[in-house]
């Protein structure tokens, strides 16, 4: 089974609540879940939607077809009716929508009235809708009860019961009135271990999976990576990470500063890092434009800093709430002068978690800026995933602190070393002074103008470190046929849709996905000769969510490899599964 529920309506109507609750419910119930959102840059009105797909096998993209369309306004019906699957249904409340539709696949459920009747409160109408979904799908309300209990823990049992009553009334109504409902939902089978657990009453029957969005994954990865200072200026789609971190700052040793602008944000992150704590900033492509000079400062002073960039369609303000992958070459080449940097472009929340952690480790170890590139799509999509393991994130303090430092006879912040990595000390932790400079400087960190020191410093800072960092980069992920005739290449957030497309096509063809999530230093072929895989293939396609195939260009610059075909999409929306299959299907994959 594989169903998609789409909730559409205006900003401010609460469709996000419905979507989020359903997603969590399905995840708890043991399904694989994938959600994605589409919203306008406005607070009320307009047209938004939240799409929840759930299935009894792994899924990793959104589909074009919708099985249940929950329409909170008339416009939603008009826009999305055509997307219904053969068994598909529209569910709406004619009172809210101010329209009564004919047609067998349009089901009028008086959410508002039911909410009033069952719970005496019309604001429970969204809970009624959730209940109705469960009813239509033939699912029980046990998991919902659990969820509501957690959610409203602080508000007390009464609120939970009211909500539950509303949901139950919605479910009952749906069951009673949905002659058309042809949904067959089976809770996915349990593993032996899980059955044992279930029998022991330890957990509910379903396998334990997490449901996580890209934003939270980055935030969690940062915490696990030891982030203690986060400075940012709000900008979609990066604000989520700031809010996530702010929420953590009460519980952990973490300071979150909203800066007056992005320039201040990155300079603050650099300042905090200089002072001795791991630090991070985050922004979108447009805000990053203002950080470019600061990036160069981090490069020159060899100050570790992690920079999160959420891409969105541009140039300029572009589409503030939509998605695109058009900042890769920009981020890679940003800033005057030459210095090493690390770029991670996770493809899903799991990668986002681990790679954010890795970004911190590499930033600290090599004293370089490290990027995490995301986009609105990755930020908002929720995936079910197996338990994340914080222990897999390396945390090691590479800095010189009080004890060790005081023991040293001499200390030079930018001392020449074999690796190019100089000792990084905490200022004030001993009598040794920590001096650094945005001008070219000597080993002591003081400014110089001579040619010889310049050459040695460029060698130290850039030429020696770069290959060492490259050694730390994992090769791209090959998924599918091990000797594929067709290779679909992608990077970052297209991971899920390419993977699922390759799985589909793999049933009949020799095909594989090659996905790059650790992008720079560009992975060598020592650990895995992915270039050989590409060269052996008959047909190679690079799929990107931009107009100029930036990764393909990078590939050529780095390796000389040229793809057979370039697939692009630049309408501000992510690839849906069918769209990508169409693009690939035109050619003999």
């Amino acid at each position, binding site marked *: 089974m594989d169903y998609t529920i789409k909730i559409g309506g205006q900003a401010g109507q609460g469709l996000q609540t419905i979507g989020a609750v359903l997603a969590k419910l399905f995840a*708890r119930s043991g399904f694989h879940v994938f959600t994605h959102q589409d919203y306008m840059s406005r607070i009320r009105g307009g047209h938004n939607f939240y799409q929840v797909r759930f299935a009894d096998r792994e899924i990793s993209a959104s589909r074009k077809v919708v099985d249940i369309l929950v329409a909170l306004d008339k416009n939603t019906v008009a826009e999305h009716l055509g997307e219904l699957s053969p068994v598909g249904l529209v569910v709406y409340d004619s009172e809210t929508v101010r329209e009564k539709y004919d047609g067998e696949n349009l089901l009028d459920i008086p959410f508002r009235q039911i909410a009033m009747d069952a719970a005496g409160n019309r604001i429970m109408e969204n809970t009624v809708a959730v209940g109705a979904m469960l009813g239509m799908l033939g699912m029980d309300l046990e998991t919902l009860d659990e969820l509501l209990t957690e959610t409203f823990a602080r508000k007390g049992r009464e609120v939970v019961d009211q909500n539950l009553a509303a949901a139950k009334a919605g479910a009952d109504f749906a069951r009673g009135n949905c002659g058309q409902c042809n949904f067959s939902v089976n809770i996915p089978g349990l593993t032996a271990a899980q059955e044992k657990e279930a029998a022991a009453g330890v957990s509910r029957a379903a396998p334990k*999976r*997490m*449901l*996580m969005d890209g934003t*939270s994954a980055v935030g*969690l990865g940062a*915490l*696990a990576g*030891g982030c*203690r*200072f986060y*400075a940012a200026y709000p900008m979609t789609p990066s604000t989520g990470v700031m809010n996530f971190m702010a929420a*953590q*700052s*009460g*519980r*952990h*040793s973490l*300071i979150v*500063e909203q*800066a*007056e602008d992005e*320039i*201040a*944000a990155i*300079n*603050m*992150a*650099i*300042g*905090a890092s*200089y*002072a*001795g704590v791991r*630090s991070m900033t985050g922004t979108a492509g447009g805000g990053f434009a203002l950080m470019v*000079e*600061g990036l160069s*400062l981090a490069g020159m*002073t060899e100050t570790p800093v992690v920079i999160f960039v959420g891409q969105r369609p541009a140039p300029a303000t572009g589409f503030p709430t939509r998605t695109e992958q058009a900042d890769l070459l920009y981020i890679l080449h940003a800033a005057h002068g030459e210095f090493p940097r690390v770029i991670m472009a996770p493809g899903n929340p799991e990668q986002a978690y681990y790679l954010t952690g890795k970004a911190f480790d590499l930033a600290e170890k090599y004293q370089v800026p490290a990027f995490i590139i995301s986009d609105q799509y990755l930020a908002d999509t929720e995936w079910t995933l197996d*338990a*994340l393991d*914080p222990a897999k994130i390396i*945390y090691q*303090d590479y800095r010189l602190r009080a004890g060790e430092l005081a023991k040293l006879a001499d200390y030079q912040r930018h001392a020449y070393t074999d690796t190019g990595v100089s000792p990084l000390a*905490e*200022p*004030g932790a*001993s*009598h*040794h*002074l920590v*001096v*650094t*400079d*945005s*001008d070219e400087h000597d080993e002591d*960190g*003081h*400014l110089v103008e001579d040619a010889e020191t310049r050459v040695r410093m460029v060698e130290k800072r850039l030429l020696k470190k770069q290959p060492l960092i490259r050694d730390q980069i994992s090769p791209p992920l090959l998924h599918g046929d091990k000797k594929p005739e067709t290779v679909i290449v992608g990077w970052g957030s297209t991971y899920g849709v390419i993977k699922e497309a390759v799985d589909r096509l793999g049933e009949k063809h020799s095909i594989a996905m090659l996905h790059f999530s650790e992008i720079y230093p560009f992975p060598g072929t020592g650990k895995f000769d992915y270039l050989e895989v590409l060269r052996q293939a008959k047909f190679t396609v690079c799929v990107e969510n931009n107009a100029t195939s930036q990764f393909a260009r990078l590939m050529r610059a780095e390796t000389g490899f040229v793809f057979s075909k370039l697939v692009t999409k630049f309408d501000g929306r992510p690839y849906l599964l069918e769209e990508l299959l169409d693009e690939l299907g035109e050619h003999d994959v």
Partner: protein
Amino acid sequence: MSELESFRGQNPAWCPGCGNLQILRAFKMAMVELGLEPHELTIVSGIGQAGKFPHYTRCNTFNGLHGRTLPVAQAIRLANHEMRVLAVAGDGDCYGEGGNHFLNAMRRNLNITLFVHDNQVYGLTKGQASPTTDEGMITGAQPFGVLYEPLNPIALAVAMDASFVARGFSGDQDQLRGLMQSALEHKGFAFLDILQPCVSYNKINTFQWYRERCYPVGPEHDPGDRVAAFQRALEFGERIPTGIIYRSERQTLEERIPVIANREPLVKQPFLPEDMAGELQRFF
């Protein structure tokens, strides 16, 4: 205990006669008199003649970008509120390129000190107008003379309710040293604008020009009175008041952030990876 020698750095590359030399001297003496050692202070500077300051003494140093001293300085303090932090900027640095940070640093009121070496000109880049350059001054970039009204840093700081607002003059060493000490000892954001002749590019506001005009505000001036301070701040021309113009008691930001208020500095707090595991639970 430190002595002057502890603070000897590179040989200054400033022009002979430059007011910066006097500021540097006053600073070193202030440090010695306060009994501070080099590693107890971090100097953050920008780019400009003033930005070279930390290289000519010895302290922890972050010599960053033009205009960006304050964000760096503030973050250092947030990360380690046991570290004394001094931001050193030029007038172009602080009021030109860095104007927005200046505004916000006053709002944040972290316990840091800011010296602005105010020579009313862009020295390092060879004499263009700065925000404090007098109207009418002709430069290579302003062939018709400066056509904007100069920025009045003291008035601006009073309007922003900066918790310590003072003006010094490089030519009055005793007063300057005292002001530096008061600024460094003030709890909260302490702003000291230091008038400084630039012998190479500012032929209007010379040493002589300043000396004739600068006068220390007397005891009749109440730095606690914001409106009086504002009125005094408007004086700049025939007479230029120096000394502490405005001062107020406010909580500092580091006293208000729960994570560090009355606690160890962030940089000393242990990292407990175990804590993080709990965060993952919410996602099941």
